[in-house]
């Protein structure tokens, strides 16, 4: 039985919204209940943003996640905001390219992924989010990489189709970074 | 010797690169090695000596990041 509550947070422009949406799309594809909702900081432009994704066999009630099972942290302010909420023994997946030398609770499982640098090596800084997502999938096993790639293939058509390959590599690289 | 110099208020800079296009002596670029407190890649000069203090960079900067000073030869 699945019941996975995840919060993904970072700067606007880091692709946090897309990461969450991909998870919800994958769930919908498999007819699993899901709810995605975004939250933007008070800054009109720039600033931080996050999204909450619930994936569950049961009906999803509150869209607000008080106690996430997993948090994916893409920048410093987000760690401060969401670490306290993470459930005991929950997964804290951190983009260590930008979030370094932080203090972590000792009742959670922290995984650091040097996502920006991995992405740069893959040739496109923009896929740092997919690196993180790869790591997330490897750790939680909510979906397979292929399931997520399937979604991407549906979304990226026409001129964007060529992006699928690098995303595939990014997912893989993320997996390797935590396994 | 430089005819002028610019002072960059790094934390105000949004790394938009607009100023760069207007420098007549082409000495501006973004410092890709760092990010400022708000996550932006800030401006830097790559050849201070060439600055003529024309002020174009500062005039075009939307965020009032740049102060420009001109060195005036003392009439001796």
């Amino acid at each position, binding site marked *: 039985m699945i019941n996975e509550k995840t919060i993904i947070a970072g700067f606007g422009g880091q692709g946090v919204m897309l990461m969450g949406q991909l998870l919800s799309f994958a769930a919908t594809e498999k007819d699993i209940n899901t709810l995605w909702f975004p939250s933007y900081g008070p800054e009109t432009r720039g600033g931080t943003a996050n999204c909450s994704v619930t994936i569950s066999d049961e009906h999803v009630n509150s869209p607000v996640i008080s106690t996430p099972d997993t948090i994916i942290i893409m920048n410093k302010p987000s760690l401060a905001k969401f670490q306290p909420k993470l459930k005991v023994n929950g997964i804290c997946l951190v983009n260590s390219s930008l979030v370094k030398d932080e203090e972590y609770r000792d009742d959670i499982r922290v995984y650091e992924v040097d996502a920006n640098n991995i992405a740069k090596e893959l040739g496109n800084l923009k896929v740092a989010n997919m690196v993180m997502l790869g790591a997330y999938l490897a750790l939680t096993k909510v979906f397979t990489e292929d399931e997520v790639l399937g979604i991407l293939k549906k979304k990226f058509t026409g001129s964007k189709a060529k992006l699928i390959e690098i995303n595939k590599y990014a997912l893989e690289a993320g997996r390797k970074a935590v396994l | 010797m430089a005819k002028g110099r610019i002072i960059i208020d790094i934390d105000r800079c949004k790394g938009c690169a607009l100023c760069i296009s207007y420098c007549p002596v082409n000495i501006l670029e973004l410092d890709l090695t760092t990010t400022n407190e708000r996550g932006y890649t800030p401006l830097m000069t790559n050849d201070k000596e060439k600055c003529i203090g024309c002020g174009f960079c500062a005039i075009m900067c939307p965020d009032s990041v740049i102060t420009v000073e001109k060195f*005036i030869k003392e009439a001796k």
Partner: protein
Amino acid sequence: MSNVKTVYKKSEGLSDFHLSYCPGCTHGVIHKLVAESLVELDLLDRTIGISSVGCSALNYDFFSCDMQQAAHGRAPAVATGIKRVKKDAIIFTYQGDGDLASIGIAEAIHAAARGENITIVFVNNAIYGMTGGQMAPTTLPGQITTTSQNGRDPETQGLPLKISELMATIPGATYVERVSVHDPKHVFKAKKALKKAFEIQRDKKGFSLIEFISTCPVNWGMTPKGAVDWAVDNLIPYYPLGVYKDKTEGIE
């Protein structure tokens, strides 16, 4: 050795707040010009700025004079309300093209018709920036926005309004000019126009509107410099720069 002369620094007319605009957005340049003009004319202490609704909604924090935030499109009415009870205050509104040309066109026209002694800073970036890039009344034919996803279609979405041209026809308006901030030379010109507008107001000579051609790199989907270039290549030909009306010089 040599003395040091400051050629350029952040204006006192601006507060220490970081502007909330996207990187490279020329809203910021226009802010500097407003601030500098008021400081150089020594009017800042008696100025009341009216923020409108658009990306500049928060600029009540950015200028260092008194500020009042107005409802969408209503800044000229708010300005009128204030000016009639504070005749010696300098009042400017700062309005986008959605704010002034769409929802607020009536208030702008009637403030001009009454010859209100105020200054409108009108920022035309041919799009609704704040709300994520919808079509504005000044969006060019064929321009892609989130509500004209195949490009603005004049058949169903009409032709762009030319605000300076329109405002110049209002008998009550004193001074109307369209300027741009795409290079230092034009920035100078724009500031000259703005200062003239504030002087006209200071001298109680009536209504002025300065239209700024501006950019929205984010919603146009361009780099900041690309956006400036696009404005020069596309907006300025459609919206020619220049003085559209100047009663003080007999230009009507």
